[in-house]
């Protein structure tokens, strides 16, 4: 048992009372004074040269205040500095159906719409490239001629570790398969929205639905050629992201430009179809994979060929290309591993980061293959996995550092709870049970911008009233990041959450944080918050000692955060080390229930009121301020691409899933899932459960029904009616196991919980379908028609 008072306790989310009463202001709920309404004209063609673009008639309309085209922007944007290839508005050519070509700012939305109709555009169509295989071939019309490549290949990644040949030769079973995956969108409920306020000195305040205020800040500054200090980015309440709001996006730049040109506040709200166009969803993927298994030696070799269809622009694509391979290294050791991933440009929607970024589709392939190999060797798929799972404190073949890993216990518990042994291969035809595992990063150790600024900084202030304000650049996008930061501060300072106010995601008020993506906030911003709080505690201890007339404590030299091997050259923030389940702040005081009590020395047993101590400290110093930082330790090897997938810690997940397959209709009903997720110390169990339940929803959507439907480059199902995300009826019964380890470097021992859960649910369904009716599905989503076709093929009854 831990002695925590806040950490580990189910804690209602900060802001949930605002949300449940409708008071929470999302971006479009803000009312800026007298705004112009911005609208975008979008390309109806997948690929064309813009031969004429004339805004004059639109601009002549009474009430139209400004208009812009690609010519109004000098630079291109993109989240990765190494691949910024997207113009805020199309310049000479359009590259996908729905690409914004021009924008108008007008006094009303109806005027804006009229004006957009008056814009004259003439296109010279170019044969679009819509097929990812064809995109690899030489072409006279590359989508990005500026890259001077003969084909539409954007990024090609190859890595090889160990000796594949030997690895496969030593396997008892070698299995292979081809897999394909539909393009997906995040389908968050809040559409994209941006509003911009401009003051008389042309300072901009940009309110935007973004996961990454800091990156947007940088992008706006670059694209508008405006110094950073003239721009303030604020993320209001945000209606879901899942990676879809983790790029600086064209409409945000365009809105800001129109505010600058018109000198007026502007308001932009994309409709649902435009939101589909703008989200950089999961890459459509084709995978060929081969896996060798030996009953004693484990996975002896794995090789993969991935082709991912990136759409029109780069987005996070370089990272995605790596993640398709490097995220195969857990949760089992693979001594001989190779992969090759090509990312191609096509004239379709840009793809980028979506929950489980890059690791989801290859995880399906490898977990299905592992199931097939177990079948071949007549091994129990769960028992086999139990034997294979990484030990804590090991290095993977490409030098990922596995610090903590509680998956073995997790899977064993899941087996018991699901009564695996009684069910596997024993359920009647039509019912089945399947298993799959996965792992994920807790934040990328390497920042996107290669600088030495801490990845997270959190600042705390306490004023005379004793209230604590936490300033963090992290974006609460519904996952509960504000809550988790407040909890950590409350824990260290021994006060209740009601005394803590979090101000986050405002680039003027908050220190830099890289944002909410790659499951980094709990780990990185969390460590920074914890460190800031420990510093604050020291100040309060000093004041308490003054009141008690005792000497301040002599702190032990904090051990550096080295967990079990090299930390590298960087010096960690001084208090990074995990202090154990019963934290000893080595100051001889207990901070609890807003009381500060001396535990030792001559003041032992004396108790001070927290507010009294604060008052004394403020009298001495003025407002109390501290900050904490997080900078990832230097990790990884020195080979090319060694940085991809490095994380200070990894989460692990296992799913045991039970399904019923209707052999007449092919419908799959997921009856029950048992999920074991090792997120280290669950800081807020309620939030962890919410992340697991949400990941199951999204994973089952991908497994069973979701996919963008393209016809001639146009998405035909860009609506919530036709892009099928699961409803309440499709959510299965869920059992969760999630208190499985403590990570030495995570704040209070915590790791990520938001993304890693998603990937393994999908292959667990596939493996359960096999157990139920004996078919292997390799095309995702596994829709009823595919199930039925496979069943018919198996029955030898081709129709």
């Amino acid at each position, binding site marked *: 048992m831990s002695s925590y008072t806040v950490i580990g306790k189910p804690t209602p989310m900060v802001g949930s009372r605002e949300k449940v009463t409708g008071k929470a202001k999302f971006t479009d709920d803000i009312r800026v004074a007298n705004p112009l309404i911005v609208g975008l004209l979008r390309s109806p063609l997948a690929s064309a040269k813009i031969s004429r673009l004339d805004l004059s008639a639109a601009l002549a309309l009474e009430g139209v205040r400004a208009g812009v085209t690609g010519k109004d922007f000098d630079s291109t944007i993109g989240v990765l500095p190494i691949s910024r290839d997207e113009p805020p508005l199309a310049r000479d050519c359009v590259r996908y159906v729905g690409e914004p070509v021009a924008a108008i700012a007008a006094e009303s939305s109806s005027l804006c719409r009229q004006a957009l109709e008056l814009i004259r555009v003439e296109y010279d169509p170019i044969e679009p490239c819509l097929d990812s295989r064809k995109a690899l071939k030489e072409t006279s019309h590359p989508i990005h001629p500026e890259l001077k490549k003969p084909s539409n290949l954007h990024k090609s990644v190859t890595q090889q570790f160990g000796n594949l040949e030997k690895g496969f030769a030593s396997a008892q079973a070698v299995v292979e398969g081809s897999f394909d995956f539909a393009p997906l969108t995040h389908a968050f409920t809040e559409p994209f929205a941006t509003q911009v306020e401009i003051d008389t000195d042309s300072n901009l305040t940009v309110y935007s639905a973004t996961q990454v205020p800091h990156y947007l800040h940088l992008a706006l500054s670059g694209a508008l050629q405006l110094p950073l200090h003239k721009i303030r980015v604020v993320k209001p309440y945000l209606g879901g992201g899942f990676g879809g709001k983790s790029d600086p996006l064209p409409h945000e730049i365009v809105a800001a430009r129109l505010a600058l040109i018109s000198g007026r506040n502007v308001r932009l709200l994309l409709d649902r179809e435009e939101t589909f166009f703008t989200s950089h969803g999961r890459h459509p993927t084709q995978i060929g994979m081969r896996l060798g298994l030996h009953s004693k030696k484990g996975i002896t070799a794995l090789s993969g060929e991935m082709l991912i269809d990136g759409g029109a622009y780069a987005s996070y694509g370089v990272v995605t290309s790596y993640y398709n391979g490097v995220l195969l290294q857990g949760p089992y050791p693979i001594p001989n591993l190779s992969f090759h991933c090509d990312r191609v440009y096509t004239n379709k929607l840009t793809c980028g980061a979506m929950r489980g970024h890059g690791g989801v589709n290859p995880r399906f392939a490898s977990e299905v293959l592992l199931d097939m190999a177990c079948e071949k060797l007549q091994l129990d798929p769960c028992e086999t996995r139990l034997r294979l799972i990484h030990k804590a404190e090991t290095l993977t073949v490409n030098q990922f550092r596995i610090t903590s890993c509680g998956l073995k216990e997790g899977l064993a518990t899941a087996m018991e709870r699901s009564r695996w042994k009684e069910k596997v291969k024993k359920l009647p035809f039509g019912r089945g049970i399947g298993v799959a595992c996965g792992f994920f990063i807790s934040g990328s150790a390497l920042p996107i911008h290669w600088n030495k600024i801490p990845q997270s900084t959190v600042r705390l202030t306490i004023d005379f009233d004793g209230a604590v304000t936490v300033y963090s650049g992290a974006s609460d996008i519904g996952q509960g990041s504000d809550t988790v930061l407040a909890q950590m501060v409350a824990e260290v300072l021994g006060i209740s959450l009601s005394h803590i106010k979090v101000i986050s995601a405002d680039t003027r008020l908050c220190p830099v944080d890289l944002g909410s993506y790659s499951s980094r906030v709990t780990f990185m911003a969390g460590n920074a918050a914890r460190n800031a709080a420990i510093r604050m505690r020291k100040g309060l201890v000093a004041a308490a000692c003054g009141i008690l007339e005792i000497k301040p404590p002599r702190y032990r030299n904090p051990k550096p955060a080295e967990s079990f091997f090299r930390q590298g050259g960087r010096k960690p923030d001084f208090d990074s080390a995990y202090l154990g389940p019963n934290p000893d702040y080595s100051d001889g005081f207990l901070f609890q229930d807003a009381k500060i009590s001396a535990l030792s020395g001559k003041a032992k047993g004396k108790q001070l009121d927290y507010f009294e101590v604060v008052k004394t400290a403020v009298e001495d110093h003025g407002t109390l301020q501290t900050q904490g930082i997080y900078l990832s330790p230097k990790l990884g090897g020195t080979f090319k691409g060694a940085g991809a997938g490095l994380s200070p810690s990894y989460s692990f997940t296992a799913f045991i899933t039970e399904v019923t397959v209707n052999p007449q209709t092919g419908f799959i009903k997921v009856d029950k899932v048992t999920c074991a997720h090792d997120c280290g110390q669950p800081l807020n169990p309620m939030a962890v459960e919410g992340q697991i339940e949400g990941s199951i929803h999204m994973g089952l959507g991908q497994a069973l029904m979701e996919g963008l439907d393209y*016809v001639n480059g146009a998405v035909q199902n860009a609506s919530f009616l*036709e892009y099928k995300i699961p409803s309440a009826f499709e959510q299965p019964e869920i059992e969760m196991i999630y208190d499985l380890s403590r990570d030495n470097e995570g704040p209070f021992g915590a790791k990520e919980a938001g993304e890693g859960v998603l990937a393994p649910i999908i292959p667990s369904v596939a493996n359960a379908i096999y157990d139920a009716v004996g078919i292997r599905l390799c095309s995702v989503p596994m*829709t009823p*028609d595919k199930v039925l076709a496979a069943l018919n093929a198996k029955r030898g009854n081709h129709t």
Partner: protein
Amino acid sequence: MMPSFAYERPRSLEELGKLLENLEAGSFLFSAGATDVISGLKSHPQSYPKTLISLTALSELKGVRLLEKNRLSIGALTKLSEIAENALILKQAAVVAQTAAKIASPQIRNRATIAGNILVNNRCSYFNQSRHNRLVHQFCFKAGGDICHLIPAAREGHSPLCRARFVSDLAPVLLLLRATLQLWGPDGYRKISLEDFYTPDGIRRNNLKSGEIITAIETDLSCAKNVTYEKLRIRNTLDFPSVGVAVMLNVTESMELAVCYTGVNTHPVLIKLSDDRKNGKAMIQAACDQAKKSAQPLRQDHFPPSYRKEMIAVLIHQNLQKLGWKND
């Protein structure tokens, strides 16, 4: 925001009659629950009426009552949620209530009416699109253009010109209940059997004349207990039926089997069989064969056409099982 239109809300059929005298055919649109109409208008601004006529204040269109000769009358404005909970309907024709209870979503059922479901617009992956998407593919016949993207050979004058699929859930059930529609128009009342109501064209859809409205639906209750309905859709809510099948099985001295499916062709397809010798198995097979032969699914839905075609027979059997038919 939608473009502007005039709005009228007549308080009686008489008032409606007067109103229509001054309106040109094609310049107005009726609306009741408004769910299908407004979502259609939002994505299809070129079909904007000059006048939207709300029927919601017409008390003549309300109420559920038993008529003579074992017939039930349901007022056109009866909302789907009311049908689902109406004690009379639950007692006399539970299948109607159960079918209504699984249409669209709870919020939509609180506005959408029975007549609205009978008249619900046909759907197609090219028609139910934004203006932007229409610019990509060109306007199809149903959207006022001159092409069918699914049957490129279709030309003006061909019949059917438009193959947008029929998606009403209630129509197949009501067809098996031998429903009759009570219509009102500028020329007065008339009755039409539901069987004669629909046309095979995805644009014209039915035999309602300009200015005509449905005032009530009358169903025959004699075989209501022998009718069931089953549908397939990927989600158990929101979605229109990918395929829906109603079945009526009546075994007395002879055996009567009727099947009606929706979601596939441009109109509900009704198959009626009877057999004095009660050779059930053969009849069922014949119904399945006829259904398969008549089905013309196109790529208009989440599910591929061949799958939807195949599912009709599966749903026939599911219904028969519900009706207590033992397949042996």
